[in-house]
Structure formats: structure tokens, C-alpha cells
């Protein structure tokens, strides 16, 4: 009982000078979105757990010299949050540039061209050239699944696919292998996707992949994306709240 009561305690804070009320325990990103304040985010996916990896959603909190990933930082009474300083813009730009340079993101020959969240962010943040050298990784394409395709060369390791496959579909087909810059998204025990026995072919992973790494074969990328997603995430969330 006590926990329920505490979780729903309301608190006050400001975001970019605007006074807002929020539920204690909610993240800064969630509260900002509820109040129509836009904080860019990339690895964040509504309806599944937060990861905190891309660092695009950074904000400042008055009184602290540090920056915080808003998708994993809970709000607190009296917090004064800044979502858009020069410093934050600089950091976000670095995050996006580094992701673009980590693997060969050549948009013009990518299935996701035009419907890619990374590309959109780059445009929003004014990333018009890369200050660091591109890496030309040469991972093999996985086309073994009858409906979906996986191109590791476009993956930004946001783990959205892993989280949705585990937490919503409940099968945990996908995971990460190795560490650091060698990290790689894999299916089952590093099988080819088409041979991953636990996969139910539900398509959730490809629907939430922000880039052109997972996609539905033979369908324009934009159409295979999150349109259906909204519905299954919300239904699952209402189940959770009721249950």
C-alpha cells in the first residue's frame, strides 16, 4: 500500500522555466513529454524499460555541474530542469555524429532513408558533416528470416529490439554479444535469424528499430514502422497498470 501511495505522490518542478506538476518517480523525459516539451531521445522507447545508452536526451539540472540522461533520471520536488542549453546541443551533436560514424550510415543507399530517426535527429541538430572518421564495418547481412532482414552495419546498439522482444513479446530472442565497439545484436545463441527457434516472427523488433538495421522485406520502411506499435505498447501498458 505504502508503495502505491508514494508512487502517486504529486510534486512540482520547472522545466525550462515552466512550472509543471508530476508524479514522483516518473522520469524527466516522460514529464517533459506530457507537458509538450520536446527533448530529443533515441534509445528511449515508450512502454519498455529505459536503457540510458544514447545520451541524446541529456538535460541539465540547476545546482549540479553534471548532465543527466532524462529518460532514466526521476524527477524530484523543486527540480529546475534545462533542456536546451548550448552545452546540451554540443553534446547531443557529438552523440549523433559518433553514431553516424560508428558504422557505415550512408543514408542514400539505406532502406530507412527518409524514415530514420537517426537521420531526422542529425537534421534537427544541424549535423552537416562528421568531425571524426567513418568506420566501414563489414558485417554480413542476415536475410535468412522469411519476413525480416537484419543489417548489423546500420545498427546503433540502442537495444530497443532486445527490450521489446523480451519485455513485450516475452521471448528474449535478441541479445547483445561481445562488448565495447564490438558489441553486436544477435538472435538466440548467435544463430541466423531464420534459424532462431524462439522467434515468433511477431515483427515488433523491426517495427521499433529506429534505423535501417531491422526491416520488413519487400515493404517500404516507413510503412513497417511504429504505426502498429502504438497499439500494442499501449495495450500492454494498460494490462500492466490493471494487473
Amino acid at each position, binding site marked *: 500500500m505504502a508503495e502505491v501511495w508514494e508512487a502517486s505522490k504529486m510534486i512540482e518542478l520547472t522545466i525550462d522555466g515552466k512550472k509543471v506538476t508530476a508524479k514522483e518517480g516518473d522520469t524527466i523525459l516522460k514529464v517533459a513529454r506530457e507537458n509538450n516539451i520536446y527533448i530529443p531521445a533515441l534509445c528511449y522507447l515508450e512502454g519498455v524499460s529505459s536503457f540510458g545508452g544514447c545520451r541524446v536526451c541529456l538535460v541539465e539540472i540547476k545546482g549540479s555541474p553534471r548532465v543527466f540522461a532524462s529518460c532514466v533520471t526521476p524527477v524530484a520536488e523543486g527540480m529546475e530542469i534545462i533542456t536546451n542549453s548550448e552545452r546540451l546541443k554540443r553534446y547531443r551533436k557529438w552523440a549523433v555524429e559518433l*553514431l553516424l560514424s560508428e558504422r557505415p550510415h550512408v543514408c542514400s543507399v539505406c532502406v530507412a532513408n527518409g524514415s530514420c530517426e537517426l537521420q531526422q535527429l542529425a537534421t534537427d541538430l544541424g549535423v552537416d558533416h562528421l568531425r571524426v572518421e567513418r568506420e566501414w564495418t563489414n558485417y554480413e547481412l542476415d536475410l535468412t528470416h522469411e519476413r525480416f532482414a537484419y543489417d548489423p552495419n546500420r545498427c546503433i546498439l540502442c537495444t530497443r529490439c532486445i527490450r521489446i522482444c523480451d519485455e513485450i513479446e516475452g521471448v528474449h530472442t535478441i541479445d547483445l554479444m561481445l562488448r565495447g565497439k564490438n558489441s553486436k545484436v544477435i538472435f538466440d545463441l548467435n544463430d541466423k535469424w531464420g534459424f532462431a527457434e524462439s522467434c515468433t516472427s511477431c515483427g515488433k523488433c523491426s517495427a521499433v528499430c529506429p534505423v535501417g538495421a531491422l526491416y520488413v522485406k519487400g515493404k517500404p520502411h516507413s510503412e513497417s514502422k511504429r504505426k502498429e506499435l502504438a497499439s500494442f505498447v499501449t495495450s500492454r501498458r494498460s494490462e500492466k497498470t490493471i494487473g
Partner: protein
Amino acid sequence: MKPDELRSLAQKEAEARKSYRYRINVCCSSGCMPFGALKVLSAFKDAVKEFGVEGECYVARTGCIGTCSIAPAVLIEPGDYLYQNVTPDRAKEIVKEHIVNGRPVKSMLYGNEAYFKKQLRIVLRNAGKIDPLRIEDYIAVGGYYALLKALTRMTPEGVIEEVALSGLKGRGGAGFLTGLKWRYVARATGSPKYVIANLDEGDPGVFANRTLAEADPHAIIEGMAIAAYAVGASKGYIYVRSEYPLAVETLKKAIEAARSMGLLGEKIFETAFSFDIELRLGAGAFVAGEETAILASIEGRRAMPRPRPPYPAQSGLWGKPTLINNVETLANIPVILLKGSEWFASIGAKNCTGTKCFSLTGKVNNPGLIEVPMGITLREVVFEIGGGVPPGRRFKAVQVGGPSGGFLPEQLLDLPIDYESLTKAGAIMGSGGIVVLDDTSCMVDTAKFFTEFCVDESCGKCVPCRVGLYKLYKILDGFTRGEGSLEDLQKVEELCEFIKEASLCGLGQTAPNPTLTTLRYFRDEYVAHILEKKCSAGKCFKNGGGVGGE
């Protein structure tokens, strides 16, 4: 075990110890073992028999004496005569001369008094002087008395207060006040609570925690038990890296010994307090020593850090309040309880009390494991204890804090060693590595080397660390091969700022330190590389181009 039993056992052991006129401590720790320490040990045992002095001379197998550069090392009490590079033959001669004839063999003694003069051994109080595999040895020197005192004469809050007043700060790197951390865990709701001793020590070249565990495992166990009593925990884990087989073995046996004496388990000293410890082996990644990664690893998941809050104190192992302390932090606890917080607070510097163990390595004449009072200057450590750089070479820099520690130049040698001063200068306390560089090292190349280490050790979760460090490495690598321009230096600084500020955990947050400090204190070397393609140490431009070369 009953309280009285501890007292009588201690008395009996102390008397037994006194009944010998001499005690020969043979170091059989990881540093001396490869040089034949075990053979030396049996040579001493044979020799005392041969000369018929077994009755007055006890031969003990001990942990590290702290002078690993003279392995195998042997310490004879009374008088703390330290013999260097002992062989089985020399062992025989030492027994004959020192024990039988009462004349220490001068030519075999380690004549370096300066090495010990400025050291102060609190954490390593027993290292090299007790047999780590005999719990009785530990009890003979006052072991488990602090636990007895805590359980029978102090409240948990009283213990926390004492630790808080001592000013002890965590020795695992960040220097968080130990008493305060304990208070958070004590006040957190949820049960059971857990205590974790961090012995991951992933920094290359750092071996202070390993040495402690190999030399005095019960100091860690006793510290953990006291911590558990203070915060209300009933279960503890020691998280130790699997690359430390001897430490693992020693700890395992020590835990069993403590259990069989009733110093771990149910109703310790006939009080209501029950506590037990399990060992957990880490897989060896550097980042696995970060506290939230340890939680994940003990729970059986991938050792990846997660954002805090929630802090482990609120939500740690399986969501329960968990205290995580470094093993050196914990080994301080028994002494603090026995000698008092006031005594502890009088040692070291004002805002930084006590001592710190360091692995002193690199280009120094006397490398080894040292323990010094906080506030000692780098100059004292490098030149007095360490004996300076090898003959004919010039001191260039000292790195404090392990692979992500900063490099400090000659003009900062009078900096006192404390958390604040080090951080201000761009270095960190880290978990206890001090590496000395002389003029044979190139600072650009060195920065590149440590950046590469962190690239390999990044868990890959967050972008600044995973991608940023790699790009940084590529740029530094370019400098050592004659690529890059002066504008790149500014880019490097910006990139470093991003990595430092935006990374999720301490690995990324500190990894730019080697680059940032070398840029700050040795910028001319970068400029020489870029503009003149010149490396004063002759390390770079090996594959064509550039001047220099050895």
C-alpha cells in the same frame, strides 16, 4: 564461539608465539611465489631441524611483505630483518648465522631503509607477519576482537558513528564517506540487506587488493562482518576476479576457517547477529568492478553498469538495500573500532584521513606495494620510497589512479596525495596505482596506450564511451604516425569533454584523463609530433616518416 573462547585462544596463541625466540616469515604471495618461495620455505623448515633450533625458531608461510622487487623476501622477527632474493642455499646460511650464531647476514639484507621510513601500515598491519591460512595467527594479533567489541558493546548506530567520525573514505576510487554510505544502507527499508566486498581490481598493474587478500584475508572478513552488523545485513559476497587464483584460494579457506570457529554463521559470539559470506568470481572485465555492474554480475546478468539513482544503498542486489565497499576500506574497520576514530582521524591529511595502499610501478628503483599516510607528497613517494628513476634517466611524469588516471609532471611533484588535490590536478585516486615514467616514454604514445585500454574495456552501453573513446584513440594513433593538425588538438579537447561529462559510468567519465592531462602538461610533445613529426622519446613514427628513433 563464545567471547571467552576468543580471549583464551588469543592468549594461548600469543604465548605460543612468544615461546619462540625467532620467527622466520617467508613470503609466499603472488610476487614471490614464481621465484621459488615455496622451496625457500621448505629449506628454512629443513634447516631449523638440521641445526636443532626448531624449538626456538618458528617458520611461517606469510603473505606479501611489500618488497616484491627483492623476491623471494624473508622477514625475521624480532628486529624486522629483511632478507632479499633468498634461495634454499641462502636459507640454510641464514639459519646458521642469524639464528644459531646470532649474527644477521649483512650481505643478504635489504639495506633500503628509506623504502619503509615514510610508510605507515594500518591496512597491511599483518601482511607478511602472519600466516593467512591460520586463523589462529590472526586471532593472536588481536583479530576478531573488533567484531566482538561491536557485537557485545556497541549498537549498530554506534559503530556507524565511530566510522563516520574517523573520516574514512572509500578506497575503491570515488572516495565517498564510508560512514555516510553505511548510514544510508542502515536507514533503507527492505530486507534482507547485503554487503558486498569489492575485490575486482581490474586496473592493469595494480595489485594492492590482491596482496591484502593473500596476506590478511581475515581483516576483510572481519570488516565485512562489522559492516553487516552496522547496516543490518545477514549475507555478504566477496566479488573477486577469477584471475586471482591465490587470493580466491586464500579467501575460500579463510571463510571456511571463520565458519568452523563460529565467527561466521548463526548467532556469532552468542548474540542475535548472524552473517555468512559467499565468494563470487568475476569474469575479468575492468568495468565489472563498477558497483552496479557487480550487482548485475552477482545476479547472473551481463556485467553492464546501469544509471544511478537508484543507488545500491536503496536498491541493490535483487532490489534490496546493499552496501558495496572496497576491500581496503573494509580492512580499515577493525582497527578503527579498536583504536578509535580519533586516533584514525589524526593520521593522514585534514580532509583525508588514514592511509592508502598503492602499487608503485614503472621506472622506479624500488617498485612494490606501499602503504602511506594520506597527504604525503608525490615527491616523497617517487623519490624517497621509490628511490627515484633508474640511473642516467630523467623523471618525466607520474600517473596516479590506474588506466584512467592523469599524468602529473615534475612541477606538480609536491602535490599532496588526497582526493581533492588529485582531482584538481586532473588525476584521480582510483584504486591505487602509481606508475612512474622517465624520459624514455612519449606522452602522446602513453595517452594512446591507456585510451586503447579503455576502448577495449568499455562495456559498449553508452555512446560517448563506446564510440567516443574509439575515435579519440584513432586520432591519437594518427598523431603517433605523423597525421593530424593543430586544429585536431581542439577537437580532441572537445571530444574528451563530451566523453567525460556525458558517459554513464565512471569508466567513460575518467577515461579521457590520460589524454587531457598530457595535453595540459605536455602539450609541446603533441605540437612536436604534429608540426615537426618529432618524438623526443623515439617511440613514434616507426613505420617510415618522422625523425627520432632509438
